[in-house]
């Protein structure tokens, strides 16, 4: 089989994964998209392993590693999602922005005086 088929398939899979990670809202779907990207990589590894006829089959061995780690990772990810859902009642990634810099405080600083006073105010805030 020509190398192009699996590579193109992997590229498509990866692109779908990227799209899913960047565009989906549901965290579960984002995690699934991550799995898609990992599997695209796995497919690449296996394809090149076969193509290069590697006597040690390093590509296949690495794929096994990746699958193991991906399993662990998805377990961890799902646990986080579960906790997030329990705490917030939603699994929506757009609404989990508690770590962001709130926009309204930016408006506050706009009015604050420039210079050392402002720096001091920032330090206390």
């Amino acid at each position: 089989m020509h190398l192009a088929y699996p590579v193109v398939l992997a590229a498509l899979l990866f692109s779908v994964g990227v799209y899913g990670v960047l565009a989906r809202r549901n965290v579960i779907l984002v995690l699934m998209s991550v799995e898609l990207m990992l599997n695209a990589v796995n497919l690449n590894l296996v394809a090149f392993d076969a193509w290069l006829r590697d006597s040690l089959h390093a590509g296949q061995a690495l794929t096994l590693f990746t699958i193991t780690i991906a399993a662990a990772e998805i377990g961890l990810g799902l646990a986080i999602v579960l906790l997030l859902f329990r705490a917030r009642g939603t699994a929506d990634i757009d609404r989990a922005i508690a770590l962001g810099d709130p926009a309204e405080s930016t408006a506050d600083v706009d009015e604050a005086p420039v210079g050392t006073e402002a720096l001091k105010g920032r330090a206390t805030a």
Partner: protein
Amino acid sequence: MNLALPALVPALPALGAAATLAVGRRSPGLARPLAIVPVAVSAVLALVVAIQLGTGQVLDAATRLTPTGGPEISLAIHLDGYSSLISVLVGLVATCVQVYSTAYLKDDPRYPSYAALVSLFTAAMFLVVYSGDLIVLLVGWEVMGICSYFLIGHHWETEDARSASLKAFLVTKLGDVPFLFGIFLLGADAGSFRIEDVLRAAGDGRLGHPTLIALLLLAGVAGKSAQFPLHTWLPDAMAGPTPVSALIHAATMVAAGIYLVARLLPVFLLSGAALVVLAVMAAVTMIGSALCALAQDDLKRVLAYSTVGQLGYMAGALASGDREASVFHLVSHGAFKALLFLAAGVVIHAAHTNSISAMSRIPGLRKRVPDAYWTMAIALIALIGLPPFSGFFSKEAVLTAAEHAANGEALTNGLGPASAVPQAAGWIVLISAGLTALLTAAYAARLFLVTFHSPAGAALPAAGGAPAVADHEPDAPYSPEPDEADPAVAEPPAMRWPLWVLAVPTMGFGIAGLRSDWLPALLDGGSLKPSAVTAVTGTGLAVVGVLLAYGAWRAATARTTEGLPAPAEPGRVPEQAGAPAAEVIVADPGRALLGPLFGPARHGFGVDRLYSALFVRPVEAAARLVRFLDREVVETYVRGSGAGAELLGRVVRLAQTGNAQTYLSALLAGVVLLAVLVAV
């Protein structure tokens, strides 16, 4: 002779000062003995050293302090008749002042630090007197300067004291900078900072720039000894406590400049120009300060101007090449002026005011302070220079020296040829000294008559001192002394006895110069006997001065007792606005004697205003410019960098949305960008 004794003399008061500072706060009971005992012991030691040394002996010992690239600095002691005499004077006056201060500053919470500074000051003066090395002498000289600054500013709560202490410090420093360069030049030319070596070099004519050295040194002397261009700090320094004025501004610190010139007189004799400059300086100082003294209303300021004038006499004697006469006058003046200040302190203590016109309205003031009254009379007669008090002999010695210098036969006593002193210097000193004798007598008489004998005070209803005091208390200049309503405690023993101790040399010291084997043998061995011509003219002028002041005072009192107001002066000055109504009824002979000069003289002929226009304001303007540059220009850059960083930060904040997908998009964009860059 054991060197430990002279070394102990400056060391003891310094140790006493350290001890007073260390324990004075915690145990105030110890402050007094710690202040008095070391100073008294070193006064006794100074006397012992003087007696052991004897007359005509010179002791010079040195140990190398530190090797330098150029001339060496050594810890040297130089003892001769001059240092013996002046150290005994310093010890006597300092002990009297310390004893007196225990009563004068009885209730002052800052007494320990005050006493420590007085002790330290005394130590520094001893160091100056005993030092045989110019650099070590300079150390004592500067320590005195800083002690003087602290002591003048003792009542730092008042604006007067703060500005006076700053002024004293800055003005004397202005003189000290050229002085330092003068010492360096002297050391470089002579190859040593030892006074012995310097004098030897001067004798051999090895000094390259005698005129320059002498003029540079004179700047420092003018600052320290309050001579004409730099005299303005001394009258203002009266903001300090009165004992400080007695110690520093009469007997010791201001004498240091004169003492230094006396020590280095052979250097000055190499330069006729410097002697003429010194003579002119002395003449302007003498006459100007005597005129000012005649117009002052503050008792201590009269005495301060009088000190400036008497220092002018000493400088005049030095300009005439006779250091014996100068030091003779220094010692007798030190005694009687310290006495005057201490007595004035008692009077101020009792009257609660510094103003003599206010004192003249206190009934029975002289009965409340009889000891101060009599000792002040003695000291004033000595100041006027009437025989047989000490001032007469010492002033005549100065006049005689000037007369000899004017005739071209200056009494240099072997320090240099008589022709080294220009005749012009002699004439300048002689004429101005004669005129000053007249003026001195007039202002001394005025001071005494107005303070103690004014009929205006007697004419007031004798309802007791307290109401009269309360009457003008708000107008009076600031008087930090504690309230002493009871006249019986106006003169506590600790304040009375120093007066009489100082009165003894004031009366008797003059005869020491009569025989050439008494005082002159201790000094250079010349003659201090007054010559007939100057004695008669000097005394005559003094008597005329007293009579003039008395006549003017009689006329003025006659006017006031008739109830007529004194004629209004066109030169009446706004400063007096503080005590206006009362001022009119005071009979002030100074106003009649000085005429149109009264107004300017009251303000020291506007020298302060001139300096303020010439120096103070330009400096302030420069300071404002620097402040502007700092605040508006430099600060702008600093603020700008801060504002720039903040603006940048605000832009970066916008990226921090909290949405993980946004971050990942940016990450992907970055990766793609890098990949493209690497590929291309």
